[in-house]
């Protein structure tokens, strides 16, 4: 068994928020508006509620095995060989997700700031920072996330107040013009923005809370914060910009932030894009960390060292990034990853839960 220090409920909240937030802060309003139109905020909100259901499922699953993480109890539920396959799948999934988030962010950076810089130095820089963070323990990751939390908070304040140039409530009306169908599509699109709460699968046994309910409460608070942030971002964007504008601007929030003109600072938008590096890296280092742990758990008594796995993943991602360079292909892989994430963080836990319920394993330990 690999040792892991415990984290407090408060640290869990931060970790989850930071893992959930990603490049979607910048791009979600555009992506949601493409599918859900005026009701994108509704889609984002409902999607958050769907994530809440996912959290409950994971919490339920985790509370059946309160002393083990998913990588340790998956083999218990489905037997060793399939358990190893599941762990491997999780490892691969997290590595790919991490890579895609990094690529999307690098793509945004490339379009807004580094027009003439090749992508690889930026990626290398980011991946080194992320890799360095991902080699630490869960507790240290929590500390790092706590330190980075200031960025989304300040960003949130700026985004909310950027709306004061003219929020147009009529942009949202009428509700549900085209029925529920586009909204459902929007929920599906927005759901990947909430991915990251699946950290609970791994972190469940390491959280120091007074009771199981407190743990669920912490998760709910974290998810609620994320919902508030995403919904606020989407609302502000779709109230200030029209549907047609939203459809062509991939990063509407940056445009809104351009409105700020202080006497001493002009480029709030640039500052925001750059400091999003904190948000993005907080997501990705959690992913890489989870991936490394998954690979470590391929064998019962541990396989390899964490830092070796992390740097191997980082190298792999860096090499892979040369093959996925076009924006279109990133988007293509992104939509594939959306499907994959639903399978991995909703489907698989549900299946595990069902099997464990049928076989009744773990109940006695709980």
């Amino acid at each position, binding site marked *: 068994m690999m040792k892991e220090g415990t984290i407090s409920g408060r640290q869990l909240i931060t970790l989850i928020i930071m893992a959930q937030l990603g490049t979607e802060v910048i791009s979600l309003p555009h992506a949601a508006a493409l599918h859900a139109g005026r009701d994108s905020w509704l889609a984002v909100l409902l999607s958050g509620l769907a994530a809440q259901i996912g959290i409950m499922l994971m919490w339920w699953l985790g509370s059946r095995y309160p002393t083990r993480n998913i990588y340790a109890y998956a083999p218990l539920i489905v037997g060793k060989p399939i358990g190893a396959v599941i762990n491997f799948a999780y490892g691969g999934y997290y590595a790919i997700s991490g890579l895609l988030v990094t690529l999307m962010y690098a793509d945004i950076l490339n379009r807004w700031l580094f027009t003439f810089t090749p992508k690889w130095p930026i990626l290398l820089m980011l991946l080194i920072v992320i890799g360095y963070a991902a080699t630490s323990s869960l507790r*240290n990751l929590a500390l790092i996330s706590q330190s980075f939390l200031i960025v989304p908070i300040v960003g949130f304040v700026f985004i909310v107040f950027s709306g004061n140039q003219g929020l147009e409530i009529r942009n949202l009306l009428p509700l549900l013009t085209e029925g529920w169908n586009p909204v459902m599509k929007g929920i599906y699109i927005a759901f990947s923005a909430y991915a990251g709460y699946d950290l609970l699968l791994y972190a469940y046994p390491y959280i120091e809370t007074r009771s199981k309910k407190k743990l669920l409460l912490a998760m709910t608070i974290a998810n609620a914060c994320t919902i508030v942030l995403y919904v606020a971002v989407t609302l502000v964007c779709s109230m200030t910009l029209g549907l047609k504008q939203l459809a062509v601007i991939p990063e509407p929030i940056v445009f809104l932030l351009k409105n700020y003109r202080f006497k001493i600072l002009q480029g709030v938008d640039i500052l925001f894009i*750059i400091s999003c590096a904190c948000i993005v890296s907080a997501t990705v280092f959690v992913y890489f960390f989870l991936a490394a742990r998954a690979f470590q758990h391929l064998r019962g008594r541990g396989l390899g060292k964490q830092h070796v796995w992390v740097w191997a993943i980082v190298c792999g991602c860096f090499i892979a990034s040369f093959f996925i360079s076009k924006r279109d292909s990133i988007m293509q892989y992104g939509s594939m990853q959306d499907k994959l994430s639903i399978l991995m963080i909703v489907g698989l836990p549900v299946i595990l839960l069902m099997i464990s319920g049928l076989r009744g394993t773990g109940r006695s330990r709980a």
Partner: protein
Amino acid sequence: MKPSASIEAPEQYFERMFANQSDFQSKRLVIGGIAYALYYLETMIDPSQVQDYILRPLLLRPQDAVHDVVSILDYAETEQLEEASQAVMNGKVVLHRGKESRLYLLGVDLKKERSINIPINERVLRGSNEAFIESLDTNLNLMRKLINSTEFVIKQYTLGRLSQTKIAVMYMKSIAKPEIVEELDKRLNSIDIDYVEAPGFIDELIQEKKSSLFPQMLITERPDRARAYLMEGKVVIAATGSPDIIILPVSFWSFFQSPEDYQISWMLGSLLRFLRICCFFITIALPAFYVSVSSFNPELLPSAFVHTLQSSLKYITLPPVIEALSMILLLEILREATVRLASPVAQTIGVVGGIVIGTVVVQANLVSTTMVIVAALTGLASFIIPSYEMSSAVRLLSYPAILLSSFFGLFGLVCFLMLIIIHLCRMHTMGLPYYKPPFGLSDVKDTLFRLPLWTLRKRPTGTAAGDQTRMRNPRSWKR
């Protein structure tokens, strides 16, 4: 080896032991028909004490036992010649009375130490003006006088195979975490070295992270500061020959605390504390920010500002990176020169540094005026940080920041700051986290700010394991 009753045997032993020591003396006297021998190093003892408290009483009462006659507090007897020779090295007089098999070790060592001075490196406007000196006994005396409690424990160690340096570990019995004291005991005992240069050697030999720029132990010359940390459950290490003591385990925030914060009103104190922490970031980031704004992201600033900046850069041929690096390097050279230069010529530095470099460099169009301002501000900001180690570390960090921001602009700077934060989060001292992000009121109370004293009722939980109540009911008169 045991001395025989004859007077010659120990003499031969000592003569052999101290064969080449020119300051070794062995004196043979006969008082009242009894032969006496005295062995000592004449450079280590105080002759007047020998005459007044050993020889004169012996002359007056030659027949009585030595123990009853000599009036010396530091008195010991031994039958081991090895022990006796070590005592000679420590500045004791070894007395041998004929026909007796034991030796008397009498402490009459000469104390040469400077008087207690005011602190030079950590000055404050309000507060105590005592500083530690090189003598361990005096330092311990200062500490005992500040803490009049049996809870205050001083444990002595001897380190250094050859130097036999005395080290004292101090802590509060009821407050300090026993694990930390034990861990420290383990680490100190494991040190095997020929001599100890305190505090540098001890610091390096017991710290956890070998390769980190950030200081992991607080070094101070102020007894009041040492006391403040002792009361938080921390452990203090003092050593002979060093006017600086080590405090551990400290967190990142301790390096921004100054004893003065608690002497002035809490609002002022908080302001100063916050200023110092801002200066930490200014020192790391300001030159890098200058580089990235002037060469990468000028759109960050309003156009009027950019125009001013660009006009100062108009005739400068050097790229901003070289400009920034050279100015920061120059600052470092000036600082080092000021430390090394003898004080009568120290004013030269002011002339050379301020006038020649500051003015002429700009007139010669080598460096822009803005860069001079940035360099000066960076230097000043780093000197505000109360700990010398921390301020040097921070200044060193500004070089990679400049380099990265010359490659990636502001993005490089942000990545570098992230690296620093990640590095800080991963550090541990004596098993405790080194850096804890200020998160929640209890964390910022005495870190980011210095809130009023009555809010600091509890000691920090990390180091204080036992008694955590600092104040029971402060300001109870108010009701």
